[in-house]
């Protein structure tokens, strides 16, 4: 129990540090925020009066710590401010697009975990022989092909030419396959390689040699003995990688016109829409912290060695 509390405390600490970091970046952004708010709203030549009004509206003249306190308080309550570009609450804009992003990330996560388990296991079982070479080759291929290049090719070949799938993805499960595959590739490559290594390391343990001597077959040894030992680092990797998936989603969503948070953020960057950019960073950070927390707790549950001594 103490471990859990301690771990939750760590997560909160990271969140707080990330919050300070994000707000700090916002504070040092060059240029007058009021000016940029007006420009993002399409006012090209704001009068000094208009700038002053926006400064007052956003209470930009308060001291920095006061502004940070207000910003953090709002963020904790789920208020991420108002998009400078659309004039609507950022939280609302995200809520509208989050389901699509989650759908994409979850599908990619599922694909990545499944494929990585398969490739990693095959490679470990046949270490040094052709299944290993093949699996590692696939992983290397998945790693080196840039997702946005693959996305462009897939849309043209699969969607436009072969007539499968849709160009204007509507963010539902029926159109998720292609973008999810593209998004999953990098993770498949990394995760399968990690799994292979940890399976092999677990395989060199003494008790496995004993098990082998007692006649346990390679598959049985793998499932019963190696996997439980190798799964913790794998799961940790998956937890950490989930947040990178969200970052990668920004690229993949833009290529596939997936109506998610990432694509919205890329548009916001081009319009210098700061609240959206900051909001996206915060959402990604929270997702990351939660994912790693969940994975840690899961690992502790699976692997008793990670529990604290009573």
């Amino acid at each position, binding site marked *: 129990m103490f471990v859990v509390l301690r771990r939750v405390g760590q997560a909160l600490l990271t969140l707080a540090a990330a919050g300070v970091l994000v707000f700090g970046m916002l504070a040092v952004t060059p240029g007058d925020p009021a000016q940029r708010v007006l*420009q993002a709203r399409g006012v*090209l*030549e704001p009068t000094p009066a208009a700038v002053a009004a926006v400064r007052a509206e956003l209470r930009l003249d308060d001291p920095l710590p006061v502004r940070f306190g207000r910003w953090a308080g709002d963020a904790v309550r789920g208020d991420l401010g108002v998009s400078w570009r*659309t*004039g*609507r609450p950022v939280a609302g*804009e995200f809520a*509208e*697009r989050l389901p699509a992003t989650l759908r994409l990330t*979850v*599908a990619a*996560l*599922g*694909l990545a*975990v*499944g494929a990585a*388990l398969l490739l990693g296991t095959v490679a470990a079982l046949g270490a040094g022989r052709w299944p290993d070479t093949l699996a590692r080759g696939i992983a290397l291929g998945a790693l080196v092909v840039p997702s946005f290049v693959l996305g462009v090719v897939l*849309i*043209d070949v699969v*969607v*436009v030419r072969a*007539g*499968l*799938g*849709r*160009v*204007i993805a*509507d*963010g539902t*499960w*029926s*159109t*998720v*396959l292609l973008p*999810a595959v593209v998004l999953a590739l990098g993770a498949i490559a990394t995760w399968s390689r990690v799994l292979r290594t940890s399976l092999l390391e677990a395989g060199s343990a003494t008790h496995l040699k004993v098990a082998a001597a007692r006649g346990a077959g390679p598959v049985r040894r793998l*499932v*019963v003995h190696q*996997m*439980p030992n190798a*799964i913790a680092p794998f799961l940790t990797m998956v937890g950490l990688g989930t947040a990178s998936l969200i970052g990668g989603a920004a690229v993949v969503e*833009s290529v596939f*016109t997936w*109506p998610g948070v990432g694509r919205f953020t890329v*548009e916001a960057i*081009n319009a*210098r829409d700061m609240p959206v950019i900051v909001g996206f960073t915060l959402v990604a950070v929270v997702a990351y912290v939660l994912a790693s927390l969940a994975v840690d707790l899961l690992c502790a*549950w*699976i692997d*008793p060695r990670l529990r604290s001594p009573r």
Partner: protein
Amino acid sequence: MTPRPTLIRLAAAVVAVLLTAGCVQTTGGDEAGGDPPDTLTIATGFAIDDLDPLVNGFWGPEFGYVELLMRPNRAGEPTPWVLTDLTSTGPTTWELTLPDGATFVNGAPLDAEALVDLFAFQMAENDSLSASLPGATATATGPLQVTLTTAEPAPSVPALLADESILPVYDVAAYREHLASGAPASELVGAGIYTGPYVVDSLDGATAQLSPRADHWAGPPALSAVTVRFVPEASARIQAVQSGEADIALYPSTASAPTLEGRDDAFFVTGEPTGPTFQLWLNQQQAPFDDERVRRAVYAAVDYDAIANDVMNGLYLPATGLYTESRPWAEKTQSTDVTAAESLLDEAGWSREGDGPRTRDGQELRFAVLTYPQQPDSDTLALAFQAQLAELGIGVDIRQVPDLDAAMQDPTDWHSSIAGNGFISYGGDHVSPLFRYVRSDGQRNYGGIDDPELDAMIDRLAVELDPAARDDLLRQVQWRIAERGHLAYIGLRKPAVVTGPAWRDYEIEGSNLWVSRDTAPGG
């Protein structure tokens, strides 16, 4: 240790996700041959945020759910749209006549009273209107007659009434109620405050769904449904047409035209241009363009013909001046003359030895041209511009900026730019752009033009009611701008859309009026 249940759970989860992700059927929209479709799906690059007439009313006329009093017609005079007649009854008075029995979608009548109310409300809320017609008033002179009285003679009234961002027709009473209720703008969907032949039934960040209005004052519309999809990526819009997900893609880039040649799933359809599209600005507030001769030399060095025919493969027309040649008052002020350009540069002290760069006092003649990603053609034009000026020994660097207007605000931070701006207002007015772009106090006079003589000409033009005298003044203005090297157009893009097979006869009306009551496949 309980490894097995854990693994099984894990495996089950993986399988479940793989099944949902992998085994769902994916289908493209398939357009069955045979009967022409009676629905239309348009992919556009810009999202419509809401139906608020003050904020986003201008999108309405383009997609058929809002109407204007006059129909913009950039090729000539505006013609009556909702109005049945607009007559000038004196130097400062206009009579507006409404059709019999016209109603808003919510059932309220569009009569003289509603129009007077609308005009007064827009005068108070719309800066463009109150700035264009200061002190103007509207009074009902009959059940369907309204008299508009302006403080000064205003020849531009028909063009103003045809401007999508000045006077969209909507039910002010209902809109006031909406404002008073404090409800969000999204509540305006279904409120029926407009008069258009199509009605927006639903609107979100990705799609607007429109249905026809059977009781429209001019008769029922041709289509059973119109869908507008918001797709910011130009290539995705075209691919959506190719895959059958959209019938028409708006704002295709010129670069995509050659890729559609010889295909039967998408067609690059062009229309008649209403005016030149890309301004070539030279910033007079800085060297080298503070010298009139250098500006004129650059404008004379551009090969307008090559840009239209070689660079843009005929999807552009050569720019010959500030207006299209079809305008009665248009003057051909732009022509390529490399010899003249060279002697102007020599005269200005920028000399050249052999094939080297042009220099003055040891300094190279080199400047940057700004382009911007929202108009990819600006990069294509800049590249050709760079190559053409290189032949004269002028170095050009291309600099893409995220926000062109913002970049040109600083008078000392840029030399030249390629900016997509027209020279005739949306409603067909040619005076207000002169005020905006080339008058010394113009809001978008980026180049810092400061020419008192030109200012005086523009001021006289603005109040001239006699057509002959007005046209004559306008010709003088064009020559003045050209002779002083104030501004030129580098390209004239033909308006274009990409359509699917069923819509390949679609006619582009200009003025961005994509959907009208009679819009149907086959033209």
